[in-house]
C-alpha cells in the first residue's frame, strides 16, 4: 500500500477524476465569468470587448455600492444571530435540558429542512398587512398597538429585518446542533471541576465552555459568513430585492444585472467582487483561527 501511494502516477490516477470534475464545474465557469466581466452585451445581442470599463463603472454605481453595503450588513447581523443563538441553544441543550433535549433539538433544527421558498411564503403571510392582517399585525392590533401595525415587507428597512429574522430562525437550529456536537465532547469532569470552583451559568460558559469549543465555533462562523454573503434564494423568494432595491444584496443585484437587465458582463463584474469579498473574509478568519489553534 505504502509503495502504491508513493508512486506519483498512482496519486495522479486517484485524484484525476475529482480534479477533472472540479476543473470543469468550478474553475472553468469562474474563469469564464471573470472573462465575461471585460465584455459588454448579452447572448442575444452579442458581446463586445470593453476592457476595464465595467470595473470603472461599478464604483460610481450607486446601486452596486448599496448592494455591497447591504450584503455586509446582512452577513454581520445574520452570522452573529445564527452563531450566537446557536451557541445559546447548544449550551441550553447541554446544561439545562441534558438528556431530554432530543425533541427540542429536532424541533429547532426542523426549519432548515424546509425549502427556502416555503419558509419565505410562511414569513410573507406572517408579516402580511393586506388584504388581511398577518399574524404579527393581528397580535399588534389586538394588543392595541395599532401604530406598530405596518407593511413590514412594504418598506425597505423593515423588510430587511424580516429577512434577517427569517434566516436566523431558519438556520440557528443547524448551528445549535453543530456546536452541540462540540459541547458534548467536553469531558464531564472538567465541567464538574469548574462547578466546584464556583463557576456557574454565564461564567461557566464564558471561561470553560467557549474556549473548549473554539475551533468548532470558528468553523461555524466561516460556514455562516460564507452562506450569508452569498444569500440568494430566501431574499428572492421573500422580497425579490424589493421594495425597489432596498433588500437587493450583491447576489440579487448580480442576478438582476445579468438576467433582467441582460448585461452579462456587468453581472459578471459584480460576481467577481462577490468572489473577492468572500475570499477576503474567509482568508481573514482562517488566519485568525490558525493563530488561535496554535
Amino acid at each position, binding site marked *: 500500500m505504502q509503495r502504491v501511494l508513493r508512486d506519483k502516477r498512482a496519486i495522479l490516477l486517484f485524484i484525476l477524476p475529482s480534479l477533472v470534475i472540479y476543473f470543469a464545474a468550478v474553475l472553468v465557469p469562474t474563469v469564464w465569468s471573470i472573462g465575461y466581466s471585460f465584455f459588454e452585451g448579452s*447572448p442575444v445581442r452579442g458581446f463586445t470587448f470593453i476592457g476595464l470599463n465595467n470595473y470603472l463603472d461599478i464604483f460610481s454605481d450607486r446601486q452596486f455600492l448599496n448592494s455591497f453595503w447591504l450584503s455586509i450588513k446582512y452577513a454581520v447581523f445574520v452570522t452573529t444571530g445564527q452563531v450566537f443563538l446557536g451557541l445559546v441553544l447548544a449550551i441550553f441543550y447541554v446544561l439545562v435540558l441534558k438528556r431530554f433535549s432530543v425533541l427540542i433539538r429536532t424541533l429547532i433544527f426542523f426549519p432548515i429542512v424546509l425549502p427556502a421558498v416555503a419558509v419565505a411564503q410562511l414569513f410573507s403571510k406572517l408579516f402580511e398587512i393586506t*388584504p388581511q392582517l398577518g399574524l404579527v399585525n393581528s397580535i399588534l392590533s389586538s394588543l392595541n398597538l395599532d401604530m406598530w401595525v405596518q407593511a413590514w415587507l412594504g418598506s425597505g428597512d423593515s423588510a430587511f429585518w424580516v429577512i434577517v429574522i427569517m434566516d436566523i430562525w431558519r438556520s440557528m437550529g443547524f448551528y445549535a446542533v453543530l456546536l452541540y456536537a462540540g459541547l458534548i*465532547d467536553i469531558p464531564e469532569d472538567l465541567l464538574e471541576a469548574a462547578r466546584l470552583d464556583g463557576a456557574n451559568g454565564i461564567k461557566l460558559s464564558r471561561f470553560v465552555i467557549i474556549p473548549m469549543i473554539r475551533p468548532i465555533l470558528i468553523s461555524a462562523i466561516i460556514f455562516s459568513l460564507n452562506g450569508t454573503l452569498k444569500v440568494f434564494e430566501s431574499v428572492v423568494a421573500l422580497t425579490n430585492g424589493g*421594495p*425597489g432595491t432596498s433588500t437587493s444584496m450583491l447576489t440579487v443585484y448580480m442576478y438582476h444585472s445579468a*438576467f433582467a437587465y441582460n448585461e452579462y458582463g456587468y453581472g459578471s463584474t459584480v460576481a467577481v467582487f462577490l468572489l473577492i469579498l468572500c475570499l477576503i473574509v474567509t482568508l481573514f478568519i482562517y488566519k485568525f483561527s490558525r493563530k488561535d489553534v496554535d
Partner: protein
Amino acid sequence: MKKKAFQLMLAMILSLLVVGCSSNSENEESTGGDETASGETGEESIHYLSTNNASGGEVPVYVDQTEEKTDYELDIETVPQTDLVQKIQLLSASNDLPEAFDFESGKPLQELIDADAVLDVEKAFKEIGIYENLNPGAVDLLKRLSGGKGLYAVPTELNLEGFWFNKQIFEEHGIEVPTTWDEMLNAAETLHENGVQPFAVAGKEKWPITRLINAYVMRYYGVEAMEKVSRGELDITDEGFVEAANQVKSMADNGYFGKGANTLDADAAVDMFLQGQAAMYYMGTWAIADFHNEDRNQIGVDNIGFFNVPTVEGGVGTLDEYNMNAGLIVAFSKDKYDDKMKEWIEAVFSDYGDRAMQDLGLITGFNVNEMPEDISPLTKLISEEIDNVTNGALWFEANFDARTKQIAEDNAQLLISDSIDPEVYMSELAKEIE
C-alpha cells in the same frame, strides 16, 4: 464520547446532504417540471409559454380552438410576468424558444427581432390568408412598438387603460365621475374620510404605480410625452414629470392606496376592488376577464364603471386620448415554425376576434365579424369608448431598455413608500436614459 460526537457529526452532515439534495430537486421540480414536459414536446403538442394558466386571460380560447380544430395538444407552461422577459431571453440565447410565447412588445421584442429569433407575423399571416382579420389600428400600435421593424407579434389583446370604479360606492358618497385630476383627488379624499379605501394599487407588481405616474404625464404633455423623452425632445426632469411623481407620492402618503400597497399583488388588488373594499382601480381593459368571473366579482358587473384618465390643470391632454396598449403579445419562434405551427396558427387565429369576444368578452386586435347579442355591459362600454379614441399613449416604460425599466419600477416602489423624493425619482431615470 469522542466516537459518539463523531457519529453525530457524520449523521448531521449526511442528513444535511440529503436535505440539500432533496430541497434542490424539489426546487428543480417546481420550476423545471414544466420544462421536462416542454423538453419532450413531441410532434403532437405545441409548447406555449404563458403568463396565464389554462383558465387565465385569453388562454381558454387557445385551448378550445386547439382541441376543437386540431389533433395537437397545447402544452402550457406558466411563468410569472416579472420573470417573463428574462426567461425568454435565456431561452433565446440557448436557441430554444418555445413555439409560441407571451412577450412584452417594445424594447424586449425589438432585441429578439434583431437577433432574427421571432417569426415575421405579417408574412406568415398573409401566407396563411388571415392577415385581413387583424385590426389595422392594433397593427399600427404594434408596429410603433417594434420601432418600425414590422409586425412580429399577434395583438391578442387591444386595451384601453383607465380608472374602473365602483358605482355603488360613488353613489353612496355622492361622488360624480371625475373629469379633472383635482376632482378625482377630491373624490379620493371624501372616500378616505369616510373609511373607504379610494384606490386598489398592486404595488408589488411595480408597473401599476408607474402607470399612475404616466397617467398624469400623458395628460400634462400629451400622448407622445414618453416618446419625446426617448427622442430627446423632452427632459424627464422637467416640472411636469416631477409633478406627476409628486402627485402619485402624495396620493400614497395621504393613504389613498391603503396600507402596504407595495405588498399587494395583482390578484389581491383586483379582488380588493371586486369585493368592494376599494372604490377605484387603474387597470387596462384586460381586467374585464376578471370582472366577468362570477366567483371573484362580488360587486356585480353592472356595478362597475370606467372613466378615462382625468385632465390636469395646465396640461395639453384631452379626454379623447387614451392610454393604450396591446397587452402582452404572443410571438412565435422562427426556428420552430413549420407546417404544424402553420396549421395551429390558422386554427386558433382565423376567428380569434369572434371567439375571444363570445367566450370571454375580450376586445382584441382582431376584427369581430359578428357582434354577439348578449354582449356584456362592460364589453359594450369599452367598445363604445374605443370608438371615441382619437389618439393613444403608450405606457411609461414602453421605450425604456430593460435596466431603465427596472429602475423606473423599483424606484416607484420607493417613491410610494416614502424612501425617495419625486425629484430624485426623475433624476435617477434621467441618468439611465442618457
